[in-house]
C-alpha cells in the first residue's frame, strides 16, 4: 500500500443494481503485473471491471486507478484501456475506422492517430482485414479488433474482460504472450477469464470472487498457503516411493501419502508445507534418497478456484 499512485485501489466499494448485489465491500490494492479475476458467472468480475473504468458508479466507496478517478476522464483514460465483453460496434465502421475514430477523440493529430492505429492493427495481426467492415468479421476477429482498440493508445492499465473468448488456439497463445510481455514491462494487466489453466500461467496475482465478494486475493502461492482447510498437495518423484511414504507417515502434519499411478512417486497431502520441505531435506541427507522432482500439485488458480469457490468453498 506504500505507493497508491501506482496501484488500482478499491476502498470499501459496493455496487447494487437496485436490490441486486453487484459487488460488496471490496477492498483491493492491485500492484502492476498480470492480475486475474476469477469466479463463476455472476460473481461480480465484470461489475468490478466496470467500476474500475467508470462505466458504473459505486453505490458506496471509492475506486482509483494510478491515483486518478473516472471523474477526470482526460487523465484517467490516457492511462486506462478497457476491452469489454460487449461484442458490439458502432454501425458501419471498418476495423481501421473503429480504432482511428476512437484515437481522434483523444485530441491527437491525424498522423499520430493513423500511426497508432496501424501499430495496434499490426500488433494484433489485423492489418489485412483493417479495411473490411467489422460487421463481416468472425468472432475471433472482432475480439482481436477490440483488443487492438484497447491497447492502441499505449495504456499503462489494461482491463480485459474475457479477452480470450472466441480466439482460436493460435490467437489465444499470441494474446497470452502479449499480456505476459506487457505485464513484464511493468504495466497493469487485469484479466477476467474462465480459462483457468491459461491465466494461471501468466498471473502474478489473483482475485477470487464469489457472489459479489472477494473471496481471496494476492499472489497465488500466498493465497494457497492461507487455505488451511485443504492440506497442500505435493508430488514427489523418487526411486523408492513406498519407503519414503512409510517415513513420512510418522509425521503429524502429513495427512496422506498416496503412491502415484506409475509407481515412481508419491502424492503427499500436508498441513504444513514448510515443515514438510524441511523434513524431506533431512530424509534426503540422512537416508541418501534420490529425488527426481518435488512439485506443488495444487498451487494454481484452478485448485484455488475449486477450494474456495467450488462446492466446498470457504473464505480466507
Amino acid at each position, binding site marked *: 500500500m506504500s505507493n497508491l499512485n501506482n496501484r488500482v485501489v478499491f476502498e470499501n466499494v459496493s455496487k447494487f443494481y437496485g436490490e441486486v448485489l453487484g459487488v460488496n465491500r471490496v477492498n483491493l490494492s492491485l500492484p502492476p503485473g498480470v492480475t486475474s479475476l476469477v469466479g463463476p458467472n455472476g460473481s461480480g468480475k465484470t461489475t468490478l471491471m466496470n467500476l474500475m473504468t467508470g462505466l458504473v458508479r459505486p453505490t458506496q466507496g471509492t475506486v482509483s486507478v494510478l491515483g486518478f478517478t473516472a471523474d477526470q476522464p482526460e487523465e484517467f483514460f490516457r492511462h486506462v484501456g478497457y476491452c469489454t465483453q460487449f461484442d*458490439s460496434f458502432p454501425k458501419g465502421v471498418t476495423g481501421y475506422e473503429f480504432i482511428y475514430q476512437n484515437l481522434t477523440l483523444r485530441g491527437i493529430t491525424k498522423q499520430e492517430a493513423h500511426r497508432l492505429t496501424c501499430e495496434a492493427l499490426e500488433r494484433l495481426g489485423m492489418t489485412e482485414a483493417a479495411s473490411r467492415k467489422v460487421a463481416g468479421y468472425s468472432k475471433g476477429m472482432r475480439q482481436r479488433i477490440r483488443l487492438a482498440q484497447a491497447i492502441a493508445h499505449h495504456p499503462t492499465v489494461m482491463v480485459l474482460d474475457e479477452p480470450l473468448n472466441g480466439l482460436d488456439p493460435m490467437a489465444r497463445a499470441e494474446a497470452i504472450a502479449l499480456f505476459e510481455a506487457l505485464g513484464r514491462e511493468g504495466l497493469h494487466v487485469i484479466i477476467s477469464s474462465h480459462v483457468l489453466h491459461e491465466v494461471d500461467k501468466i498471473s502474478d496475482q489473483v482475485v477470487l470472487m464469489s457472489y459479489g465478494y472477494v473471496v481471496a486475493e494476492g499472489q497465488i502461492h500466498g493465497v494457497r498457503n492461507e487455505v488451511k482447510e485443504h492440506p497442500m498437495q505435493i508430488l514427489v518423484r523418487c526411486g523408492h516411493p513406498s519407503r519414503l511414504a512409510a517415513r513420512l507417515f510418522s509425521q503429524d502434519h502429513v495427512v496422506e501419502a498416496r503412491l502415484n499411478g506409475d509407481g515412481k512417486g508419491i502424492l503427499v497431502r500436508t498441513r504444513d508445507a514448510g515443515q514438510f520441505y524441511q523434513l524431506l531435506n533431512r530424509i534426503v541427507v540422512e537416508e541418501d534418497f534420490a529425488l527426481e522432482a518435488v512439485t506443488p500439485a495444487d498451487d494454481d488458480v484452478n485448485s484455488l478456484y475449486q477450494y474456495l469457490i467450488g462446492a466446498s468453498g470457504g473464505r480466507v
Partner: protein
Amino acid sequence: MSTIPSIREFFREAPWQLWTAQVFAVVRIELKKSLWMRRSVWIYLVAFAPAFAVGLHALNSPMGRNCSLGEDTAILAGIFQLFYLRLGIFFGCMGLFTWLFRGEVVEKSLHYYFLAPLRREVLVAGKFLSGVLASVLIFGLSVLLSFTFMYAHFGAAGRAFIFDGPGLGHLTAYLGVTLLACVGYGSLFLALSLVVKNPILPGIFVLCWETFHAVLPSLLQKFSVMFYLKQLCPVSIPSEGILALFTVVAEPVSPWIAVPGLLTLCVAILVFACARIRRTEISYLAD
C-alpha cells in the same frame, strides 16, 4: 465569496483547445452517421415533401399563370409555419436527436465514448452540434428549394421580388428560424432521450404543448420553442378559425428578446442533459 474567482480560474485554466478538437472529432463521427444512416430516409422524405409539392405547383403554373406573388408568399408562409415548424422540423429533430444517444444504447456502442478521455459534457456538445448541422443541412436545403421553386416560376417578377423586394429578407428569416427550430427542438429531444427510453409518448406531449401553448398562461408560454419561433416568421398567416390556434401571437415580443430567450431555454435544457449524462451508467441489459 470565492465563486467568481474560481469560475474565472476555471475558464482560464480549462483545456479549451483539447475540448474544441474533441467536439470536432465527435461531430465528424456523428455527422456521417446522422446523414447516411438508413433510418434517416424518412426524415429526408418528410423534409423534402413540401419542396416537391411546391415544385409541382411551379410546374403547373409556368410564368405565374393562375396565381399571384402575394398568394404564393402567403402559401409559403403557411407551409413554413404549419408544416415545416410544426411537423417536419419537429419530427425530423425528434428522429435525429433522440437517436444520438438512444441509438448508441440500442446498438450497445455508447461505452466506446465513455471509455475515451472525453468529458461527457464535451460529448453532449459534440453530439448536439452534429445534430444541429445535420438537421439544418436537411431542412435548410428543403426550405431553400421550396423558396426557389415558389418564386422562380414567376420569372422576372419573381427575381425582382427576391433581389429588389423583401424576398431575400424572407429567405434569411426562414433559414434563421429553421436554424433556431433545429437548435430548440434538438436540445429538447436530446435531453428527452437521456430521460426516457421511448420518446414517442413524451414526443406527443411536447407536440401538444407546442401546438396549444397559445392558450397557456403567459409564464408557461415562455417554455415553448414555438412561442419564440412564431414571432420571428417574416410573413403572418391569417389567424381565422382553427388556424388561429397555430398562428395567433398572443403576447408579441421583439426578436431581440425572442432569439436570446430561445437560446437561454436551449442552454438550460443542455445543462440538464449534461448533468444527466454525468450520472449515466452503462447497463445495456436494462435497456
